[in-house]
C-alpha cells in the first residue's frame, strides 16, 4: 500500500556553504518554503551540510567499502536496503508534513540527516551505517535516530509511525542478490520485525504495536512491495522546546532470529561515532584539498566518499564499482577513472588494488574486456596501470603490471596489423566494435582508438619506469606509428570537430577523450574546442553536455572537455563547467549519471562513481597538473582561491608534494611548495597580470605565467588587476 503522507522535498534556494551563516540561511529557506506548516521546521544540526537538492528526488547512499549493498536514504522519510525499507509518517502532522532533502555532514562524512516538519513540531533524523562482525564482512547495520521537538506555544503530542515495507515509493534499486519474494509472512518478535522468518528491522523500545499486531504465534501475510502489518508508533507528549528521540535499526541483509542480539544491541551513538570515525580516517588519508570555496571542498570529499563506498572485495582485493546501487558491477571504462582519481587523491593502495582487479579482465590473447564489444577496455586498463604505477612513481608497481601490459600492447598491435593486412577502410586502426552502450552504434569508434593509443603510450611509460628498454622501444614504436595513422584518419573524416566513429555515426562519447585524458590531440586543438562548443550548445544553459536527446543531461561526459580547456589555458570554461556540475548535483553532492532537465533521473540513481572520479581529477588538476614534463600550478584557480588554497600530500608523477596558494598583500600572490621536483610554471589567475617576479630564480612570462627552476620552494610575484581574459 503506498504511503499516504506527502513527501515534499523542501525546495531550498541555490546555496553554497561559503557563508559561515549558512545554517541561518538554510533555516530561512526552510521556513520560507515549507507549506502547510504554521511554524518553521527544525534546523538540521550544526554539523549538517544543508545543500539544495537539484534532482526531483533526494536520494543518498550510505555505504561502506567491502559491503555488497548500500543503504538508500530518501526520497522522503525512508531508508532501504533494497529488500526492506522503514518508512516514517508523522501522524501528529494535522494537515501536511514537509520532508527535507537528505544531507550529509559538513566534513563530508556520510551520516545522513533529514527533517520532517509540521505545524508546531518537527522530527530530525540521523542515519549512520557501520559493519558488525556478527553479521559478516559484507553486511552492515543502519542505525536511525528520530528526534522530535515540540516548538508550539503549548504542549502537544508527537506521534511518529514507522512502517516496514519491501521497497520505498519512488526510485529505488533492488539489489542483484535480493530475493524475488512478493509475499511475506510477518510477525513481531519483541522489538524485531520479522519477515519470512528473518529479522528485517528493529524498532525503539518505547514503540508500541497495535493490539492486533502479528506475532510469532499469530503471523500475518502480506503481498507486494508496500507496507504490510509491521507498523509501530512512537509517541510522546512534549512541552515547548522539549525533545525526545527514538532509535531504529535496519540490517543490510535480513538476519536469522538467532542473530537478533547482533542487530538489537547497537546503540545509535556507537554506530554513528564508529561511522564518523571510519570516514574521517579515510578522508584524512587522502590528499588534503582546501580552497576558500567550501562547496568545492565538500564536492571533493563527497566524491571521495562515493569512490570509497563503491568498492567491494574479491579475492582479497578491492574492486571498483560503477556506483553503490544500480551499477554494482565493474566496467573497465569506469574502473580506470576510479584508479586515476584514487591515485591523484592519495588513496594509493586502494588505487593499485583496483588496478590489479582490472588486470583480471585480460583474456589469453591480451585483450582486456569487461563488457562484450567494448574495445576501449584494453587502452583503459593499460592507462589505469600507468596511473597506479606513476602516482606516485613506483618501479616495483610498474614491473608488476608490465607482463599484462606487454600482452595488451601486442594485442593492439596485432589488431592494427590485421586491419592493414585485410586492407580495411580503417587500416592501422582497431576494427569495428559494438559497445551496446555509450556511442550506441556498431562502428569503428574513434574513442576505441584514442584509448588504445593512450594505452600503448602507457605501456611505454610503464616500461620506462620498470627499466625495460626493449619493451619501451617497442611501445614507443607502436605509439608513434599509431598516432600518425590516427591523425591521418581524423583529417580524412573532414568532420567540423571530432566524430564519434570513423564512419561518422553514433552518439558523442569516446570522441571527447582525445584531448584529455588520452592526449591524442593537443589540448589546444581547435577541433576539441569546436566539439565542446557543439556539445555545450545543445545543453545550454545548463553548463553541462547532453547525452543523446537534448533533454538528457550528463554529469561526466563533459568533464574531459573541461580538462582539455584547462590544459589549453581557458580556465573560465572549466569553472563554468564545474559550477554547472555542482548546480546539478544532489543535496549530498552526488551526481546522477544522466538526468532529465526537469530533474528526474529515473532508476539511474546518484551518486555515480565516474562522475565522482572526474570531479576529483578535475579539482586536483586545477591546482596541480603534471600532464607534461613541467609541474603546472594553479592552472584553474581563480583569483579568489589565492586567499588560501592548499593541496597537501598530493601524488604526482614527480612525487608526493604539497602546494599552498595565498595572497600576502593585495598586489602579491605566493606559491609555497614542500618539495619542488620539476620545472615549475604558475598560471596567473584571470583578472590579474603578473608584473614582477619577487622570488629568486622566478621570471614572468607574458604577464600570464611565472616560471621557476626545479628546487624552488617559494614563488612570489606582484600582480596588477585587470579585466578578465576573454
Amino acid at each position, binding site marked *: 500500500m503506498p504511503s499516504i503522507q506527502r513527501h515534499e522535498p523542501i525546495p531550498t534556494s541555490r546555496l553554497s556553504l561559503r557563508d559561515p551563516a549558512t545554517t541561518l540561511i538554510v533555516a530561512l529557506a526552510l521556513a520560507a518554503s515549507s507549506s502547510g506548516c504554521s511554524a518553521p521546521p527544525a534546523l538540521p544540526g550544526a554539523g549538517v551540510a544543508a545543500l539544495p537538492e537539484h534532482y526531483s528526488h533526494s536520494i543518498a547512499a550510505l555505504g561502506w567499502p567491502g559491503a555488497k549493498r548500500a543503504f538508500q536514504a530518501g526520497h522522503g522519510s525512508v531508508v532501504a536496503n533494497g529488500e526492506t525499507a522503514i518508512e516514517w509518517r508523522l501522524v501528529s502532522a494535522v494537515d501536511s508534513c514537509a520532508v527535507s532533502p537528505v544531507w550529509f555532514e559538513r566534513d563530508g562524512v556520510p551520516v545522513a540527516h533529514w527533517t520532517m516538519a509540521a505545524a508546531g513540531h518537527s522530527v530530525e533524523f540521523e542515519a549512520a551505517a557501520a559493519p558488525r562482525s556478527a553479521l559478516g564482512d559484507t553486511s552492515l547495520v543502519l542505525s536511525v535516530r528520530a528526534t522530535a521537538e515540540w516548538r508550539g506555544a503549548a504542549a502537544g503530542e508527537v506521534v511518529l509511525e514507522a512502517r516496514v515495507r519491501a521497497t520505498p515509493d519512488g526510485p529505488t534499486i*533492488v539489489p*542483484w*542478490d535480493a530475493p*524475488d519474494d512478493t509475499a511475506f509472512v510477518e510477525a513481531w518478535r519483541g522489538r524485531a520485525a520479522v519477515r519470512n522468518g528473518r529479522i528485517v528491522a528493529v524498532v525503539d523500545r518505547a514503540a508500541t504495536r497495535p493490539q492486533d499486531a502479528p506475532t510469532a504465534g499469530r503471523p500475518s501475510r502480506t503481498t507486494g512491495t508496500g507496507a504490510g502489518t509491521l507498523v509501530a508508533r512512537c509517541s510522546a507528549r512534549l512541552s515547548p522546546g522539549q525533545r525526545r528521540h527514538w532509535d531504529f535499526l535496519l540490517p543490510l541483509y535480513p538476519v536469522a532470529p538467532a542473530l537478533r542480539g547482533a542487530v538489537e544491541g547497537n546503540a545509535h551513538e556507537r554506530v554513528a561515532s564508529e561511522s564518523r570515525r571510519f570516514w574521517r580516517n579515510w578522508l584524512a588519508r587522502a590528499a588534503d584539498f582546501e580552497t576558500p570555496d567550501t562547496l568545492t571542498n565538500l564536492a571533493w570529499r563527497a566524491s571521495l566518499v562515493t569512490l570509497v563506498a563503491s568498492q567491494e572485495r*574479491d579475492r582479497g582485493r578491492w*574492486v571498483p564499482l560503477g556506483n553503490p546501487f544500480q*551499477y*554494482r*558491477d*565493474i*566496467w573497465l571504462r569506469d574502473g580506470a577513472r576510479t584508479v586515476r582519481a584514487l591515485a591523484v587523491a592519495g588513496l594509493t593502495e586502494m588505487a593499485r588494488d583496483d588496478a590489479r*582487479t582490472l588486470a*583480471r*579482465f585480460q*583474456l*589469453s*590473447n591480451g*585483450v582486456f*574486456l*569487461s*563488457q*562484450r*564489444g*567494448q*574495445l576501449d577496455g584494453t587502452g583503459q586498463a593499460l592507462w589505469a596501470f600507468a596511473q597506479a604505477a606513476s602516482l606516485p612513481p613506483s618501479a616495483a608497481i610498474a614491473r608488476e603490471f608490465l607482463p599484462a601490459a606487454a600482452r595488451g600492447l601486442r594485442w593492439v598491435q*596485432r*589488431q592494427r596489423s*590485421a*586491419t592493414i593486412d*585485410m586492407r*580495411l*577502410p580503417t587500416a592501422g586502426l582497431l*576494427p*569495428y*566494435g*559494438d*559497445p*551496446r*552502450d555509450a*556511442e*550506441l*552504434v*556498431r*562502428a*569503428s569508434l574513434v574513442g576505441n582508438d584514442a584509448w588504445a593509443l593512450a594505452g600503448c603510450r602507457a605501456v611505454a611509460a610503464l616500461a620506462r619506469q620498470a627499466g625495460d628498454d626493449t619493451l619501451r622501444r617497442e611501445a614507443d614504436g607502436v605509439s608513434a606509428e599509431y598516432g600518425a595513422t590516427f591523425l591521418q584518419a581524423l583529417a580524412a573524416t573532414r568532420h567540423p570537430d571530432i566524430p564519434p*566513429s570513423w*564512419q561518422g*555515426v*553514433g*552518439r558523442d562519447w569516446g570522441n571527447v577523450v582525445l584531448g584529455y585524458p588520452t592526449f591524442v590531440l593537443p589540448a589546444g586543438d581547435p577541433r576539441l574546442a569546436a566539439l565542446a562548443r557543439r556539445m555545450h550548445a545543445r545543453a545550454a544553459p545548463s553548463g553541462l553536455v547532453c547525452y*543523446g536527446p537534448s533533454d538528457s543531461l550528463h554529469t561526466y561526459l563533459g568533464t574531459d572537455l573541461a580538462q582539455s580547456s584547462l590544459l589549453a589555458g581557458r580556465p573560465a570554461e572549466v569553472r563554468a563547467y564545474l559550477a554547472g556540475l555542482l548546480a546539478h548535483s544532489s543535496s549530498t553532492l552526488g551526481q546522477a549519471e544522466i538526468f532529465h532537465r526537469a530533474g528526474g533521473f529515473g532508476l539511474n540513481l546518484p551518486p555515480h562513481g565516474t562522475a565522482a572520479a572526474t570531479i576529483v581529477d578535475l579539482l586536483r588538476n586545477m591546482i596541480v597538473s603534471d600532464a607534461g614534463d613541467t609541474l603546472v600550478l594553479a592552472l584553474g584557480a581563480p583569483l579568489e582561491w589565492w586567499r588560501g588554497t592548499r593541496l597537501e600530500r598530493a601524488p604526482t608523477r614527480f612525487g608526493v608534494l604539497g602546494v599552498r596558494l595565498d595572497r600576502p598583500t593585495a598586489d602579491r600572490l605566493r606559491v609555497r611548495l614542500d618539495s619542488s621536483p620539476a620545472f615549475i610554471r604558475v598560471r596567473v589567475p584571470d583578472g590579474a597580470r603578473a608584473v614582477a617576479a619577487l622570488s629568486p630564480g622566478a621570471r614572468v612570462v607574458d604577464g600570464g605565467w611565472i616560471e621557476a627552476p626545479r628546487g624552488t620552494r617559494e614563488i612570489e610575484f606582484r600582480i596588477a588587476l585587470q579585466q578578465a581574459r576573454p
Partner: protein
Amino acid sequence: MSRQRERERRGEPGRQHEKRRANAPRPVLRKSRLHRRLILFFAVMVVGALGMWALVHQQTVPHPPPPFPTAAIFDSALVTFREQNWKDALHWARLLAAAEPSNPAWVLHLGVVSHNYSFTWLKVGRVRSVTRTSLERIELESRALALIDSSAAWTRSNEQWANAMSQGGQVNEALGLPLEAPQYYVAACERVRDYPAALPHAVFIAKSLHDPPTIPPGTVLLRDR
C-alpha cells in the same frame, strides 16, 4: 678435533666417560630406566592415538559419490542443453568432463556451456544476469575459450576439430572481437571445406569489417547498462 671429542662424537667410551659411569650412583640408573619406559609408553600412546584419529578421520571424510554412468550424465547434459537451462547444464557438463577428462567432445561441451552460462539471464523473477559481476562473466568466458582450444588440440577427427573452431569463433564473436572470430571460422573452413557452421559467420564478419552494419543511434536499448 681432539681425540676425546672425536670418540664422544663416534659414541666410543673414553676415559672421562668411564670415570663418570664409575662415579654415577645406581639410583640414577634406575630413574633413567623408568624414564625410558615412560617415554616408550607415551610414544605408544601417541602412535595409538594418531592411529585412532586417522581411522576416525578416514571414516568421517565423505567418500566421493559413486560415479554415474557417463551415459546417464550425458542424458541430463543433453536435456538441460536443449532446454537452455544453462545453470543445470553447466553442472552436468562439469560432471561429464570430469567423468572423461580426455574426451574432447565433453571438454568442448563444457566450454560452450560455460560461455552460454555467462550470458544467461534469470528466467524467473526480475530480469538479472545469473552472474553478479563482469569479473565472473569474463572468467567464465576465459575458461570457455581455454576449454574449446584444449578440445581442438585433443581431437583427432577433422569434423570435431572444425566444430571446436567454429564454437571458438562464436564465443569470440559474441564477445565482440571481430578479428579473433574469423581466425577460428576460417581455420574450420580450411580443415573441413566450407564448414557450414562457420562459413556464414566468416562471410558476415568479413563484410562487416569492410563496412560495419551500423545501427542508427536510439534504436538500440542500453542492454548492458
